[in-house]
């Protein structure tokens, strides 16, 4: 597991992260969710590949229900990409690394 991942503890921490960092990729997940377990290694890899550009954050929706409600999370995994504090991309479900890379490369170009 990458040590570069940021595990969000509460909404204050989340808000401060997305306003402070230019690019933040957020993985909404839960411990009981098998598809989330599948994409976890991809989030690790993104954190390593893009460590100079993008912050990768993990939001456990059971511990952060307010964030899940705020961002209308209806199915997990849901991955949101924030640029300058705004959501610029959203991926729902199990997607390969290439799908995420395409979005990240476009958005950070």
């Amino acid at each position: 597991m990458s040590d570069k991942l940021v595990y969000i503890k509460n909404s204050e921490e989340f808000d401060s992260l997305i306003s402070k960092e230019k690019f933040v990729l957020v993985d909404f997940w839960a411990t009981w969710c098998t598809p989330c377990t599948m994409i976890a290694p991809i989030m690790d890899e993104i954190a390593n590949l893009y460590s100079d550009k993008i912050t990768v954050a993990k939001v456990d929706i059971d511990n952060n229900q307010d964030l899940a409600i705020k961002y209308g999370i209806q199915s997990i995994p849901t991955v949101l990409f924030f640029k300058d504090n705004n959501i610029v991309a959203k991926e729902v479900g199990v997607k390969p690394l290439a799908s995420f890379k395409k979005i990240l490369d476009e958005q950070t170009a």
Partner: protein
Amino acid sequence: MNNITDILIVGAGPAGLSAAVNAVVRGKTVRIFSNKENYLSKAERVDNHLGFYNISGKELMNKFSAHAKSMDIKIEDGKVVNILPFGDFFMVNVSGNIINAKNIILAMGVSNVKEITGEKELIGKGVSYCATCDGMLYRGKTAVVWDKSKDACNEANYLDSIGVNVIFISNNSTTSTSNLNKTINFIEGSIKTILGDNNVESIILDNGNKIKTDAIFILREAIAPSSLIEGLKIENGFITVNRNMETNIKGIYATGDITGKPLQLSKAVSEGLIAAQHVAKNK
């Protein structure tokens, strides 16, 4: 990596079993999953499979299964929900368990999955195919479960047990309701349309009745191949393959009825063999 199987086969009909037998003959490790009765078992009489004149589909299927069993091939009960490529292997979600495999052979038969109006637009916005995956998100809310497979009842009971207000919709009033938790509302019918702008808001039944809901779980026997794997090339409902039964994704093969017409037993058996031999030759 520990415990990585050479080939994971989805479906245990003629194509899947043929692939399994031929892969095992060539020394490959195989796991084969199935969650439904296949179409061949329902055929009353088969006359065009060489060497077996005038035989029932069920008899043939039993012979196929016995053949596989005598080679120590165990058909496991499980529904394949997601397949995710990781470069040199695949991670597969089988009924909530993760299994790693170097190659995949798809052999789940024709998926008569006909999407309904609003379904595609609202995936991940209240439309879900997996109660155990997304159920927790609807605790304290209302969810419709649409009975399209034998596990629908169990999945509805699971949702009920975690505190979802479940409405069970089925055409089958007798068998379905007998195992259903008493707290679940049962409505006989079928769903025509899903409504909602950003999220699921309601559904419309075939009799025109409208039901308000926060989510709809559509529990079909098979997940549409396009939802199973991102980027799989599909044309007119059939998976595109080359002469080696390779799909557009390296390491994923498709065999049998899902690759297109003719939807015939002998073709399925041949395609299973071709895929298995190609995997064995290359890895």
